[in-house]
C-alpha cells in the first residue's frame, strides 16, 4: 500500500504527476491550466472564468447534453475553478470509470465548440453569478480594495470580471482566449488514487500526446510598483453591519518569506487552511481574536494569505461590533501588529503553529480529491516539492525570522484599509 509519486513531461509539454493511493477504489483526476484573471486585459475581464463555463458546453464528441450527464451517470463528482492564477478541472470517480474523465479532458483541451447560442445563454448565467456576488457586502468591498491595491498588475480585477465586459465579450474573444491558453505545454495533469502507474501513464500518453504543443502563450508583464503611503477607502451599501478589511502586501508563495509569514498568520489570526476539500479550525485564541473579539471591538476577525504566482495580499477581515466604531477596532489591530514587530514571539507559539499545520495536513490527506488537488495546485505557483517540504520549512522558522518579516511586510505605508459601512437609507 505504498504511495508512489511519478512525475514526467510528455513530448508536447504536458506535465503529468501520478500518485498511487490504494485506500479506496477511487481516482481523482485533475487538469490545471496556467490561465486566470491575471491573463486578462481591460475589456476582456472575466474571460478566463467564462471560458471555464464554456468547457462544459460540449465538443463534437461530447455534446453539451451528453457531457453534463456522462460523469454523473458513472457516479463521478466533477467541477472546475477559475482563480487569479489558474483554471482547474477535476473528476473524482470510481476507479474503473476514470477513463471517461481522461477522454473528456483530452477532448476538451482543444475541441470545445463554443457554440454561439451557448455563449449567449452563458452570458446571462455569468451576469447572474456576478449579481449574486454583488449581494454580498464583502464582495463589494473586496473588489474595490483589489482595484486599488493593483493599479498596474492584472490582479486589479475580480475573477468574475467587470459587468461592462460581461456584456460585450464576444464568442471570438472567448474562443481566441481558449486556443491561446488551453495547450498541453501550459497545463499540468495530476492524478491520485487507485491505479497502476505504468498502465495509467500509457493511457494518458495515448490520449494526450497527439494534442499539438502549440506556441507558448503571451503573458502580461505589468509589475505593480511599490505603494508609498496607506490608502483608505470606503464603500457604502445596504445592511446594518460594518466591515473593515486591512490588506498588506505579501510575497508570492515560492518566496522564502512565505513560510515565516504563514507562521505569523497562525499566531495573529489562526492558521489559514489551504486545503480545498477539508475545513479549517477555529481561531479563538489567536492574538487578534483576543484583542478584538474578546475585547468586544469586533464580533469576528479572520486573516488569510493565499498562495499566488506574484505578490498578492494578506487580508484581515473584521466584522465590527455594533456598539463600536471601525477606528477603535483598527487601533487595537495596530497595537497587535506593533507587538509582533517590537517583540519576538515565543518558541512555544511557533511550535503551536507547526502542530496546527501538521493537523490540517492530516485532515487534508483523508480524501483523495484533496490529494489530487494539492499535486496540481502546488505546481501552479511553485512545484509539488513545495507541498512535500511545507512542514519542514515551517519547522525551520525562527522567532527572529518572524520579527523580520513582520517589520518588512506589515508596513502601514503599503497597506489598503477598506470599510464597508451601512448606507442608512442614503440613496
Amino acid at each position, binding site marked *: 500500500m505504498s504511495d508512489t509519486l511519478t512525475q514526467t513531461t510528455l513530448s508536447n509539454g504536458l506535465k503529468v504527476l501520478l500518485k498511487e493511493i*490504494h*485506500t*479506496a*477504489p*477511487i481516482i481523482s483526476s485533475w487538469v490545471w491550466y496556467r490561465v486566470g484573471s491575471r491573463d486578462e486585459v481591460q475589456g476582456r475581464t472575466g474571460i478566463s472564468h467564462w471560458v471555464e463555463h464554456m468547457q*462544459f458546453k460540449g465538443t463534437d464528441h461530447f455534446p453539451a447534453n451528453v457531457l*453534463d450527464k456522462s460523469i*454523473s*451517470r*458513472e*457516479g*463521478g*463528482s466533477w467541477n472546475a475553478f477559475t482563480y487569479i492564477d489558474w483554471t482547474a478541472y477535476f473528476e*473524482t*470517480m*470510481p*476507479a*474503473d470509470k476514470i477513463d471517461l474523465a481522461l477522454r473528456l479532458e483530452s477532448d476538451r483541451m482543444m475541441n470545445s465548440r463554443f457554440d454561439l447560442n451557448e455563449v449567449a*445563454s*452563458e452570458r*446571462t*448565467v*455569468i*451576469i*447572474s453569478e456576478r*449579481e*449574486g456576488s*454583488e*449581494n454580498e*457586502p464583502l464582495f463589494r468591498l473586496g473588489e474595490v480594495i483589489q482595484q486599488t491595491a493593483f493599479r498596474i498588475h492584472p490582479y486589479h480585477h475580480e475573477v468574475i470580471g467587470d459587468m461592462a465586459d460581461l456584456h460585450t465579450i464576444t464568442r471570438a474573444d472567448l474562443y481566441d482566449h481558449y486556443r491561446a491558453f488551453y495547450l498541453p505545454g501550459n497545463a499540468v495533469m495530476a492524478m491520485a488514487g487507485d491505479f497502476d502507474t505504468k498502465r495509467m501513464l500509457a493511457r494518458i500518453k495515448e490520449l494526450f500526446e497527439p494534442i499539438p504543443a502549440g506556441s507558448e502563450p503571451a503573458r502580461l508583464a505589468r509589475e505593480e510598483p511599490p505603494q508609498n503611503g496607506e490608502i483608505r477607502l470606503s464603500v457604502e451599501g*445596504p*445592511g*446594518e*453591519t460594518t466591515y473593515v478589511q486591512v490588506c498588506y502586501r505579501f510575497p508570492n508563495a515560492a518566496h522564502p518569506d512565505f513560510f515565516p509569514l504563514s507562521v505569523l498568520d497562525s499566531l495573529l489570526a489562526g*492558521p489559514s487552511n489551504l486545503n480545498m476539500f477539508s475545513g479549517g*479550525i*477555529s*481561531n479563538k*485564541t489567536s492574538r487578534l481574536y*483576543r484583542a478584538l473579539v*474578546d475585547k*468586544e471591538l469586533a*464580533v*469576528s476577525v479572520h486573516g488569510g494569505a493565499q498562495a499566488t504566482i506574484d505578490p498578492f495580499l494578506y487580508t484581515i477581515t473584521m466584522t465590527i*461590533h*455594533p*456598539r463600536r466604531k471601525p477606528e477603535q477596532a483598527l487601533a487595537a489591530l495596530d497595537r497587535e501588529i506593533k507587538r509582533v514587530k517590537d517583540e519576538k514571539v515565543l518558541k512555544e507559539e511557533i511550535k*503551536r503553529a507547526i*502542530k*496546527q499545520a*501538521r*493537523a*490540517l495536513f*492530516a*485532515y487534508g*490527506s*483523508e*480524501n483523495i*480529491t484533496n490529494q489530487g488537488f494539492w499535486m496540481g495546485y502546488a505546481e501552479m505557483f511553485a512545484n509539488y516539492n513545495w507541498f512535500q517540504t511545507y512542514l519542514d520549512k515551517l519547522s525551520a522558522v525562527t522567532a527572529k525570522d518572524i520579527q523580520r518579516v513582520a517589520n518588512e511586510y506589515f508596513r502601514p505605508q503599503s497597506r489598503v484599509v477598506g470599510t464597508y459601512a451601512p*448606507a442608512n437609507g442614503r440613496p
Partner: protein
Amino acid sequence: MNMAGYNLALPGPGDIYREVLSNGIIVLARSNFNSPSVVVSGYFDAGALFDPDEKLGLSDFVTSALMRGTKKRSFDKIYNELESVGASLGFSSGVHKSGFSGRSLAEDLPLLLNLLSEALTMPVFPKVEMEKLRAQLLTGLAIRAQDTSDMASMVFDEILFKGHPYSRPEDGHPETIQNITRWDLVKFHREHYGPRGLVIALVGAVKPEEAVRQVKRALGGWQVKGQKEAPELPALKSLKKTVSKHHRITGKSQSDLVVGTNGPMRRDPEFMSASIGNNILGQFGMMGRIGDVVREKSGLAYYAYSSLSAGIGPGSWEVNAGVNPQNVKKASDLIVDELKRFVQEGVTADELADTKANFIGRLPLSLESNGGVANALLNIERHNLGLDYYRRYEGLVNEVRQEDVLNTARKFIDPDRLAIAVAGP
C-alpha cells in the same frame, strides 16, 4: 483494490462497532488508519422544538455557549487546548436535536473527548461571555436579514409550515434573543441535556475498542435524572392553494426564490423514490431538469436546483434559484411548469437508469473522509436503517421503478398548492 472489494469498502456490520453504554449513550466506531486523524461527531435530544416562542433561539444560544466556560476551564483555556493541537470542536442546534462535531490528530483524541464531555456535562454559562455571545448572535441575525437566500428560505418555511414548529427559524429573531437570560440557558441545559438519546460516532486512526473505552472514560459516568421528553409534533396542515410572499430587501442585485411543498419523512417508504425523483428533477448533471430549463436553456440563473430535506418529521421538497429581480416571475413560472410536467409525466426509463447509476457510483465518494463516514454512521442510527444499510444500498436504489417515482411525486407535489417565497428588491 479490485472491484470485488468495492462493496466491502463501504461501512457494514463487520467493521462498524456499536455499543450501548450503561447510561444509555450509543457509541459507533469505525477505524481508518490511512490518515493520522480522527473525527468525533454526534447528536442528542435537545433542539429548537423546546424553545418557547418568546425565547426562540434558546437551544441555539445554549449550544453556542457550551464552550464559553466549564467548571474546569475558562473559554480561553478550552480553546487554547483545542487550537494548540490543531483540533476543532463545535456544537449546533437543529429543530429536534443538537449536534457536535470535532476532529484532531489521533494522538489528541483523549483531549478532544475531555473537552466534549466538559462542554456537555458541566457548562457554566459565564455572564460576561454570554453578553459577548449575544452581540455576536444579534450581528448574525442582522447579516441574515440582508441575505436573500436565508430570508427566502425563512419566508418559505413560514408559509409551508404555518402553525407548526417547523415554521420557526432555529436561530430566533433579534427580540427573542434579547429576551433570553442566563437562567434560561442554565435551565434549558439542566432539563434537556443528558446521556439518554446521545449518539456519538468516532471514525479515524483509532481501534474501535479503544474508541469506546475512551468514550466510557469521558462520558460513561454521566447521569441525569428527569431529562425531558420531546413534545409531540402537531399535525401538519397542507396548503389549500398556492401561497406567494415577497420579502423586500432593498439595494440587492439578485433575488432568491424558493418554490416547493412538503416532502416525505426520512423513514417514509417513499423516501428513496422521492430522492431519486428529486435527483432527476433538480440535481442530476447540471442540476437536473430545473437546471436545464432555468439555467441552460433560459440563462436566467447561476444556480437553480431542487432539494429534499427529509428528517424525523415531514420535510420540504423545494426548488431554489437566484435570479435577477426582473426575472423572478419568469423563473417562477418555468419552475412551476417543470413541477407540473414532473407530476404529469413522471420520469423516463433513461433518466431513472442514469440516476440509479449516479446514486450507486457516488456512494463511495461520499464516504471518502472520516467526516463522511461519521455522518453515515449517525444517519444509520438516527433513522434506524440497519448497520448493513450501505451494503444494501445498491439493491434499495435498484428496486425503485418509474411508477414509484411518479406515484411519490403525485403524493407530495401538487402544482396548484405550492409555497412560493421571494426575497430581494
